[in-house]
């Protein structure tokens, strides 16, 4: 699952720590999601999208391999 959290974070000029605090998770979770090593729950994905005022699809992109 690809995502563009890093891009949105850079646009909003916030750090991983600030985003983690705003979402109520650890910074390690944000790092893992940005590296696509951890796929967040639907709830957290919506929280992230809501934080940046965009739709979930604009941040997360599902690849064919994810659906197999």
């Amino acid at each position, binding site marked *: 699952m690809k995502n563009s959290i890093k891009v949105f974070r850079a646009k909003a000029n916030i750090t991983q720590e600030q985003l983690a605090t705003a979402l109520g998770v650890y910074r390690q*979770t944000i790092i893992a999601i940005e590296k696509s090593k951890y796929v967040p729950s639907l709830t957290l994905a919506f929280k992230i999208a809501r934080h940046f005022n965009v739709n979930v699809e604009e941040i997360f992109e599902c690849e064919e391999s994810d659906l197999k």
Partner: protein
Amino acid sequence: MKQNSFYILTGLVVTALVGIFWLSLEWNNALPIQIGFIIGVIILYLARSRVVGIIADERSIAISQKAAFHTLEILWVVFFTFSLGFIVWTSSNFFGLERTPTFRYMREHNPTDMVFGRPFLNPGFIQLLFLCMIIFLYVGFKFYYERKYGGEDTDEE
């Protein structure tokens, strides 16, 4: 309650339990440590529910769940294997087969062998070994999944 206060309370409870354990040995009575341990766990459980500022991080929860599940899987196999062996060891004569000495037989006929020579045949020690194995397995799996789900603390780019 702050998290640090909880850690201090945990230390105090553990220290008290060590003391009670020693008293139980002195009095040759298992009840104090058994009751004490249950009370200690209840105290810590109640205290933990009052700790403020804990982050319910979903990745950490997922890692803990996976680690616990795999620990349980391995423990189940090991414990079942041990139990099968124990049943054979203690109940062979039930099936009309020759029997190796039981704990009770060894304690009554050759207590030094029981006390000094083979302390790990004591069921309490064996169960403690299993509990230690749970801790090692759980921590090992936690490390593994921490790495797998990549939360390495890197500098921000």
